[in-house]
């Protein structure tokens, strides 16, 4: 069983989807329950990974699976190679954890072609899980592209008014990035074969040890970096996100924010950074600059939004800026902060999109000006919304603080000190846009008569929020549960990145990154 655990987790939703196709399309209740059951079972199958102590001691890949897959002559070899380490572990679990919650959130929201919707959701889960456990670049690319298709249809069919525009924009953006990455993947493979290095098909771990010349590294890194930056998304390639988020159905937004954006950050950590460490070194100041710009820019734009969902979307740009800054610090604290912030963002922003979904289902509008005084009618909702808001702001005791703080500690220890100072102002802006929105939606008197008869959260809605609230506090108060199983993998990764950088002549850093005053 343990030999095939990752395959089982990855393909269980797909299997469920195939069975689901045989359920009559008008039996909506069964379709929904079945999809929920499949995602729940997937979650329980994946749960033993969380308790495996091996991640606390070893940073290497566990639960390895390896089969030859496609070979074209003797030249192209693509393998089915899976594995999980402390870095992908929590993203994998986040995926299996969020999926049942999103399915449960569609109970009332989706009534058009339920069968198609559920099938796509399950396909999407398989694609995401596959991307997190792939150790073969080609296999990763396969899953990466596979993710696009269900999401494209989820937005395009079940989305809001501008769904076609949003779906196409989402597809163009991501596909452009993917193409760049594909070219780079092929180049790396050619180089590996040509240089006669011992490789294992497209196995990424063997690629880590290639000595790709600097000049080529720069182009390859950029190709990967742009592709992942679109997914993260980093400024200025973020503009697909507000549209996609706003138009997507609630479940789509949750999946998009909680998991698919993590593909970008994960891509940096797993592929772009360790594959091209020299290029990384050159580009870090620029990437860090974009991260910091993203934090401030995302916050300021979020502040002025009139649509709650768009506001949350722009806040994602800011939050992911913290993740990237932490990762680029290239030290234990920053990396751990970035990693935990990925999980946090999944939980908090996922929860925020669910919350927006709750009020959208009730009022069929998301304009802040349509609301006001909701706390009178919906006290439970008000409390949950407040907790999630605080987590998003990063109040200590909630998960958001731990992630932001560790990222900032890391950045302050590294050469990115000055970027970190600017990034820290993000804590002010986050409070401004979140609390202002909360105040306008929840506080005050009810001025719009349509809000007079709003019902508080139902039992189902509370049940699907509670697990998220538990993790908001768990990660906030005792993050060690997660950190200790990340640390060995992060250590190994940093070793991989840095050992290859030592050989490089120290490139000149831009003046801003040098520490001028504090010596």
């Amino acid at each position, binding site marked *: 069983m343990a030999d095939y655990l990752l395959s089982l987790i990855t393909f269980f939703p797909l299997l469920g989807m195939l069975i689901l196709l045989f359920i009559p399309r008008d039996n909506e209740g069964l379709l929904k329950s079945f999809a929920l059951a499949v995602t729940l079972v997937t979650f329980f199958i994946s749960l033993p990974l969380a308790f495996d102590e091996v991640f606390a001691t070893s940073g290497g890949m566990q639960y390895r699976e390896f089969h030859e897959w496609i070979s074209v002559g003797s030249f192209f070899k693509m393998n089915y190679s899976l594995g999980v380490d402390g870095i992908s572990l929590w993203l994998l679990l986040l995926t299996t954890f969020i999926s049942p919650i999103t399915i449960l959130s569609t109970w009332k929201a989706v009534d058009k072609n339920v069968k198609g919707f559920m099938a796509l959701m399950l396909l999407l889960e398989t694609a995401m899980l596959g991307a997190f456990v792939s150790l073969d670049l080609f296999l990763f690319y396969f899953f990466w592209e596979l993710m696009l298709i269900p999401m494209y249809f989820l937005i395009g069919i079940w989305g809001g008014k501008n769904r076609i525009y949003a779906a196409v924009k989402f597809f163009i953006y991501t596909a*452009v990035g993917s193409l760049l990455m594909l070219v780079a993947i092929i180049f790396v493979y050619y180089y590996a074969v040509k240089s006669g290095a011992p490789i294992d098909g497209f196995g990424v771990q063997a690629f880590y040890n290639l000595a790709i010349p600097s000049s080529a590294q720069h182009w390859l890194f950029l190709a990967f970096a742009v592709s992942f930056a679109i997914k993260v998304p980093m400024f200025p390639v973020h503009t697909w996100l507000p549209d996609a988020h706003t138009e997507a159905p609630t479940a789509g937004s949750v999946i998009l924010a909680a998991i698919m954006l993590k593909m970008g950050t994960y891509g940096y950590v797993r592929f772009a950074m360790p594959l091209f460490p020299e290029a990384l070194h050159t580009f870090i100041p620029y990437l860090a600059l974009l991260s910091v710009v993203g934090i401030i820019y995302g916050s300021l734009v979020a502040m002025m939004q009139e649509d709650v969902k768009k506001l949350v979307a722009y806040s994602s740009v800011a939050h992911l800026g913290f993740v990237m800054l932490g990762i680029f610090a290239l030290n234990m604290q920053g990396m751990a902060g970035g990693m935990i912030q990925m999980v946090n963002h999944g939980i908090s922003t996922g929860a925020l999109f669910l919350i927006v979904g709750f009020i959208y289902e009730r009022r069929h509008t998301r304009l802040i000006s349509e609301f006001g005084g909701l706390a009178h009618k919906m006290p439970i909702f008000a409390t949950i919304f407040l907790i999630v808001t605080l987590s998003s702001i990063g109040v200590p005791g909630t998960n958001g603080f731990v992630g932001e703080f560790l990222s900032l500690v890391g950045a302050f220890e590294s050469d990115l000190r000055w970027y970190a100072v600017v990034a820290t102002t993000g804590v002010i802006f986050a409070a401004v846009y979140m609390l202002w929105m909360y105040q306008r939606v929840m506080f005050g008197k009810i001025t719009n008569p349509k809000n007079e008869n709003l019902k508080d959260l139902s039992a189902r809605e509370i049940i699907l929020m509670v697990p998220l609230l538990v993790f908001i506090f768990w990660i906030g108060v005792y993050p060690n549960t997660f950190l200790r199983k990340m640390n060995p993998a992060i250590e190994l990764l940093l070793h991989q990145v840095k050992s290859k950088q030592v050989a490089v002549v120290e490139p000149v850093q831009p003046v801003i990154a040098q520490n001028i005053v504090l010596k």
Partner: protein
Amino acid sequence: MYDYLWLIPFFPLVGFVFNGLFGKKIRNEAVIGGIGTLMIFLSFLVSCGNFFTLLNDSEKVHQQVIASWMSVGQLQIDWGFLFDPLSALMIMVVTGVGTLIHLYSIGYMHGETGFYRYFAYLNLFCFSMLMLVLGNNALVMFVGWEGVGLCSYLLIGYYFDKKSAGDAAKKAFVVNRIGDFGFLCGLLVLFWSLGSKGVWTFNFVEIAENAHLLQTGGVVVTVVTLAFFLGATGKSAQIPLYTWLPDAMEGPTPVSALIHAATMVTAGVYMIARLNGLFGMAPDTMMVIAVVGATTAIFAASIGLAQNDIKRVLAYSTVSQLGYMFLAMGVGAFSAGIFHLMTHAFFKACLFLGSGSVIHGMHHAYHKAHLHDDPQDMRNMGGLRKKMPITFITFLVSTIAISGLPFFSGFFSKDEILWWAFAGERGHWMLWLVGAIAAGMTAFYMFRLVFMTFFGEQKTDARAKDHIPESPLTITLPLMILGTLAVVGGFWGIPHALGNIFGHMPNYLENFLAPVFEHTQELNGLEIKPEMAHSAALEFGMMGVSVGIAVFGIFLAWVMYIKNPALPGKFVASFTGLWRVVYNKWFIDELYAAVIVNNCKRIGTFLWKGIDVKIVDGIVNGTAWAVKGIGGGLRYTQSGFLHNYAMGMVVGVVVIVGYYIFG
């Protein structure tokens, strides 16, 4: 006894969880209020136990680690507590005053629909405040620091259907966050700069022990302490971040007493005292603190002169008194600053609760008479001393205490600060002068308040004036206890010069706190200038001058509001411009709104509609249109796109293979 330290914050946490989860169902005010009050009272008992154990203990610093919080590489942060004289004093104030205010709230909040919510928040506040003062490292302190800010937000916004309350709550949180930005920066630079010397720590004891690794007066220490001080100005409402505190009066009055007078707003003072080892090494920062403190003291006092809302006067008075505490910190008079923190907690809590009692009575009367007059406007009061004798007496003694008349608590603490400001190595006669003038203004506006509220003829609407009752015992009992403390609380820290007269009575408080501050003060020469140190005559002389100024202030208030009530009107008429500026709080709020808030909004809109929509999306959509054109009229749908997608893939592969083969 120290093993039970964790119980001190734990009890209020239990109260919060209990009332938060079940309060709405219980509905019984006696149970909700009883649990809330009992929990903080239990904390008070445990605090007493620890406090008295510490008094007789030769070992003055104790730590208790509960669990590891974050552990990544060299970063190790615990959930831990630090118990030394400073935190011992603070927990006594927090739990003691806290208990009284909980008790008071049972009566004051009677009949409110959000009764359970109020008590849950109040308990959560006590929990956070206790974490703040008990934390053994800067991160646990920060948990409390942000926690009290959050509770302040929740409690200011308690009447959330009032727009002004929601605005005030948000303003408080955001302005505090600006301070928190400073706190975080200070924390992170400190961690990194000590770390680069080989000590990776956030622990206060370790920071104090290793502070010498940093250069005294160096850039690092100055930057770190200035950043921390920015944090303090946010939480403790000092210039330039004081503007949230007066607005915070939107909250229920007991909240103003507990959070916005006695405890939370003193957190900045406590933080500087806690990090005295670092601050002592940064003379430039200390100077900034002293100047900001003195300026705030006089500036806020000037606004207090002209306000007519009873709580607003007290709010500006709090800002002003906090200025004194910072002045003390800035001139190195750490224990004097903490002393004033304590006495201020007594008399200001009593004043706020007293004003609450008045408002409660006025509200009751207006309610009975079906009037909608403002129950907080002093112009509607007058002559209340006969209606509310207990409130009046306690209010009066607290007013005397804050005005600094001899042998009341405020006299001892304020005078010690002024003495240090004058005679300390880091002092300056100008700091003293500003402080002394501010003391005169304090005496004036406080007695103006007393005269307008309790003396003269009753100006309340005739239909309501006979319905003003004295408040019930749950309200008057805390007033009496706090009033007593406001009178006698100062005897714990009698200045040396006075102590000598009373047969060598030592300054107990200074001795008690010595283990915390002594080292820093010796190391950095933070003491009274030697030529003045033994001059009892000089000390008495200064004392006499400041008492004289205070008495003059009181006299002026008497002339203007009792003897000749027409005078204020004439004054306003002849100095209209000046009066308007002062009455409108020097237009600082308007200035901030115009310069900062509006520009931020403008930039946000520009980035959104200018950069995002026009430029970035313009490029994206433009490309799409161009592609569409090339595609020969293909419709703007997926098919047109997939075509390009496939093309792009092929072209990409061809290019790269070509590059590989021919390159």
